[in-house]
């Protein structure tokens, strides 16, 4: 009887519970992905390998997100797009962030990609030996007027009490000829993306090259970071969490030496113009700048470096007043 009753009441009930619980699960699984736009700082190259990895490996989708990863470029500004609502996440350099916040832009930093700024200066050690910062005196140094390499170099000179009159600042463009011709002693470039390309050319010409890293001289000017709006963080905090979780996982996996081949293949898939042998050199260079050690927690925001960046900008009058950058740093990844 009891069994019959169970059959009559219990079985359908269990069935109903099962169906309901399945029904409860099913929408979760089939729930349409939440679409967000993510504006990169630059074109698809080695500096966005983790972003591409998260996209291509389905990490974003796994976290319920359909992310439109949009390449950046000289005319693209992620912060402006965030404010205009064209993107929900973006990559911007620290000087961009500080400048924007000083003008009232409601943005926050949720992860820091580069732990060391990739902006370095290439030089020929045989012709221009550089052992201490004081050796910069008398040299012709390339800078991009208005670019953050100018800010970094001026900060470096100021830190070591080198008068600008003691060096020759040479306005650079994308054409390296003045450096190849030896008219300029130090030329600014991105350590991970450009140094392997230029290095190959110098090696072919039988010349040795070295790189000057300003961070080793105490100038820790922060580079690319992931940003979003304050509103996004407050109103869609969970989305921000899922995004950053997927993104940081993508970066960790892309920089993991075990996934080297996959990461290289991915860069080549999105950027067909760069030869494979260059990408092979670019990847470890990028890893050094983003993962100083194997156990480093990727995406960590270096508050001290951010404060130094703000100090530098303030000293060079690039911002009129202090923005208290530490208030913008919202490390979501932890």
């Amino acid at each position, binding site marked *: 009887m009891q069994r019959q009753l169970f059959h009559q009441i219990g079985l359908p009930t269990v069935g109903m519970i099962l169906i309901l619980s399945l029904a409860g699960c099913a929408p979760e699984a089939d729930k349409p992905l939440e679409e967000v736009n993510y504006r990169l700082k630059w074109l698809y190259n080695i500096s966005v390998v983790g972003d591409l990895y998260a996209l291509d490996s389905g990490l974003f989708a796994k976290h319920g997100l359909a992310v439109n990863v949009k390449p950046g470029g*000289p*005319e693209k*500004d992620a*912060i*402006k797009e965030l*404010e*205009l609502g064209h993107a929900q996440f973006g990559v911007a350099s620290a000087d*961009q962030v500080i*400048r*924007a*916040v000083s*003008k*009232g*832009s*409601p943005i926050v930093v949720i992860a820091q990609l580069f732990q060391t700024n990739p902006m370095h200066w290439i030089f020929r050690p045989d012709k221009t030996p550089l052992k201490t910062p004081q050796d910069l005196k008398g040299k012709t140094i390339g800078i*991009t*007027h*208005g*670019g*953050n390499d100018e800010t970094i170099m001026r900060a470096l000179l100021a830190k070591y009490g080198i008068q600008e009159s003691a060096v020759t600042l040479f*306005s650079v*463009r*994308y*054409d390296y*000829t003045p450096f190849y011709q030896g008219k300029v002693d130090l030329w600014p470039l991105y350590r991970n993306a450009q140094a392997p390309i230029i290095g190959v050319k110098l090696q072919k010409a039988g010349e040795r090259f070295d790189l000057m890293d300003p961070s080793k001289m105490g100038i820790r000017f922060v580079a690319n970071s992931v940003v979003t709006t304050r509103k996004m963080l407050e109103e869609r905090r969970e989305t921000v969490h899922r995004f950053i979780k997927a993104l940081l996982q993508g970066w960790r996996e892309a920089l993991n030496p075990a996934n080297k081949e996959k990461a290289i293949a991915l860069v080549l898939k999105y950027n067909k113009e760069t030869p494979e042998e260059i990408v092979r050199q670019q990847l470890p260079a990028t890893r050094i700048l983003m993962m100083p050690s194997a156990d480093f927690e990727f995406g960590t925001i270096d508050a001290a470096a951010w404060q130094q960046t703000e100090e530098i900008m303030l000293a060079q009058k*690039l911002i009129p007043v202090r923005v208290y950058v530490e208030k913008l740093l919202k490390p979501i990844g932890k």
Partner: protein
Amino acid sequence: MLHRRIYQFLMIYFTGFAALMLVKYSLDLSDYVIPGFSEIWSACRRYFGLYLLAVLNTLSIAILGHVLSICMATVVGIIGRLTIWIGSFIRVAAYNIQAYPIVAVAPIIFILLGDGLSSRLLIAAMICYFPLLLSIIGILSEPVSEIEHFFESTHRMKWQLQVKIRAFENIHKLMTVIVGSATLAMVGTIVAEFIAANAGIGYSIRIALYQSDLAKILVALFLIGICTSIYLVFLEWLGGIIKERIGSI
């Protein structure tokens, strides 16, 4: 009384400016995206003099490039008119070279000429030269039979006379092309400075862009517009005098 070109520019500039402000305040955008009045005013006070000098620097190169282009286009136009194959060769070559994006050609120019005056001048000339050349070749190759017939049939026609007849008959078209290409010369010079030079307003805009400083760019655009308008007014005045002089010869 402001000249037509100048108040037209002012109308366009301030309409665009008003549209920007409308977007800024209706979407509540920060000064980083679109600067506010106070920031623009402060940029104006701080950079007006500096940018004015930069624009004048650019304008002087643009004028030089423009004059160079007019002379070159006239010479090549005259040669291009002589025989059918040279004319068509020059025309095809002009179309092809014009089709090259200047940013792609610029590195070659900078390697060959460095980033000084000559590169700026060449790029400015390249941008305004080809439209000029095509128009001048077009004008000089088109016979004005009603006038030329007499000189042809009485064996008096010389190339100088032919050029004179065709140029005179198309003086309005020529002046329009010359005035139109003046704007291109200015654009060309700014592009050259933007790409590589170390002076001029294009260079200043590049720096402002690096710093995402739209306030400075708005000041620069104002000065570029006003100075270009003044140059165009000058050219139109000069054109009027030339037409008048020719008319009274």
